[in-house]
């Protein structure tokens, strides 16, 4: 019994060594190159793109593209589905978005940098704005007559960096959560004529 055990140790030692060598060799060998896949960039696992957080969401809305485009161009309509929007000031080409940030409103001065009928819209914060952001809406026909795929794409520099980003995320006021909720409200408004609420009291 004792002899057999003493036989086992060298065998085990060699096996462990062999595994170690194979493991290290694996780590040293470069894996296959991964060419870009078909997924949108914002779904990539990397966290930042040159200091910008990139996020977005696509929602299919059963409405024609031009109608959805018109909703985004009309401040009165925007206020219906952008719950945190306090006001839009400035001009249509240079709108200032007044957003409720949880601790009072903040202002983002932007330029309309793209406006293609029934296709796309984009705004970019002007230089020196408090909040660096670019927001883009793309509209394309959904397959099988399902209406329009509305894609919102937001790139921004989170205030207070990654810490600020996670703090906002935990409170549900990060651009990703807000954007998702805004698109869903827009969908409700266009598909049902109203925005769903579980409240059974008008004033709450």
């Amino acid at each position, binding site marked *: 019994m004792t002899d057999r055990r003493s036989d086992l140790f060298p065998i085990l030692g060699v096996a462990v060594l062999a595994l170690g060598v194979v493991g290290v060799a694996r780590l040293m060998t470069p894996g296959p190159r991964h060419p870009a896949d078909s997924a949108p960039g914002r779904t990539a696992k990397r966290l930042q793109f040159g200091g910008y957080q990139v996020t977005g969401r696509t929602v*299919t809305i*059963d409405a024609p593209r031009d109608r959805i485009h018109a909703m985004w161009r009309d401040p009165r309509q925007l206020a219906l589905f952008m719950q945190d929007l306090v006001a839009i000031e400035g001009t249509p080409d240079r709108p200032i978005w007044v957003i409720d940030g949880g601790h009072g409103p903040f202002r983002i001065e932007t330029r309309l940098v793209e406006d293609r009928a029934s296709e796309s819209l984009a705004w970019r914060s002007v230089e020196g704005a408090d909040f660096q952001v670019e927001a883009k809406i793309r509209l394309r026909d959904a397959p099988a007559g*399902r209406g329009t795929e509305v894609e919102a794409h937001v790139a921004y520099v989170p205030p207070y960096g990654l810490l600020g980003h996670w703090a906002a995320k935990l409170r*549900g006021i990060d651009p990703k*959560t807000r954007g*998702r*909720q805004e698109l*869903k*409200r827009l*969908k*409700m408004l266009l*598909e*049902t*004529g*109203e*925005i*769903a*609420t*579980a*409240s*059974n*009291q*008008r004033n709450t």
Partner: protein
Amino acid sequence: MRALTWHGKHDVRMDTVPDPQIVNPRDAIIEVTSTAICGSDLHLYDAVIPGLQGGDILGHEFMGRVVETGPKSTLKKGQRVVVPFTISCGSCFFCKATLFSACDNANPVETQEASELLYGHAVGGLFGYSHMTGGYPGGQAEYVRVPYSDVGPIVVPDGVPDEDVLFLSDILPTGWMAAENCDILPGDSVAVWGCGPVGLFAVQSALLMGAGRVIAIDHHPNRLALARGLGADVIDYTQTHVLEALMEMTGGMGPDAVIDAVGMESHGMAPDNLLDTAKQKVGIGADRAHALRMALMAVRKGGRVSIPGVYGGMADKFPLGALMEKGLQVRSGQTHVQRYGSRLLDMIMEGKIDTTFLISHRLSLEEAPRGYRNFADNQNEWTKVVLTP
């Protein structure tokens, strides 16, 4: 108004709360004339479905009279309606495909987040249920705000007693869809786990759809007697080895289709169920899936598995191998109530379906807490409780 409210595990009370108002244009306000306690209310009572908040008004099986309408409601004051427990907009992709319980728009955006995280997609809206499904105030109350009242409510002619049609709100279409999901061919054998209201209606529906033999499984003598009364053969799992019996009763093949009308609070002393119970007690989102495991083992190769029973979390020790190797088909889901309303109402009016046999107790709304307690603790005798405000 008076309403039954949830305050925690095994703690429901009658409270005075503000009357509901018309909030959205398609709303209507219903004065409740009859409401029932559902088996899935017991999942809330037992606090195994997540996302309830203190003070929530429960109840999703209700009917009543229209007392107020929003400018875009198609209902008229005074009409009698049964209200589906699923809240559905009628115009999204899912509603158009008659997948009403999967409605994309009825769950408010703020409450869509939890189910998107837990299930991968936001689920629809339900009355008197979890905040994952909207947290809509329910129907065990004097009045209810009914959203999308132009889509959901089933108008009932005067002169038909409430009890004849009340169950169109949930359990009758749920039992019907459970049987429909079995794709029953003439002569098929169907095994049904659970002889609660949904199981019993599934038995009735399967026989109406041409099943040759329906075998119902439970342990409450009174519930088994009700199943037998509908024309089912029965197995008492406390007396009989269920899997062996099902094989012997189906010529050694196994049932062509199986229905799990039990859901996440399965009974029984089986080892898997004891482990599930322990995990459920410490609140880690474990479902007690014993009935479903048995159903997957029992069903014949290539058979159909229908799951109307409610699940909310995770299951392990799951016979995935049986599912794949036997080539089973699984169908499930909250009921697409609006799909079935008018057809089932016609069948009730023609006398093809009777639902009143189920009702064991009639209480006033004020006695609802007592109804919950007994429906949970004495399932043999308390098969269905109807409450009247």
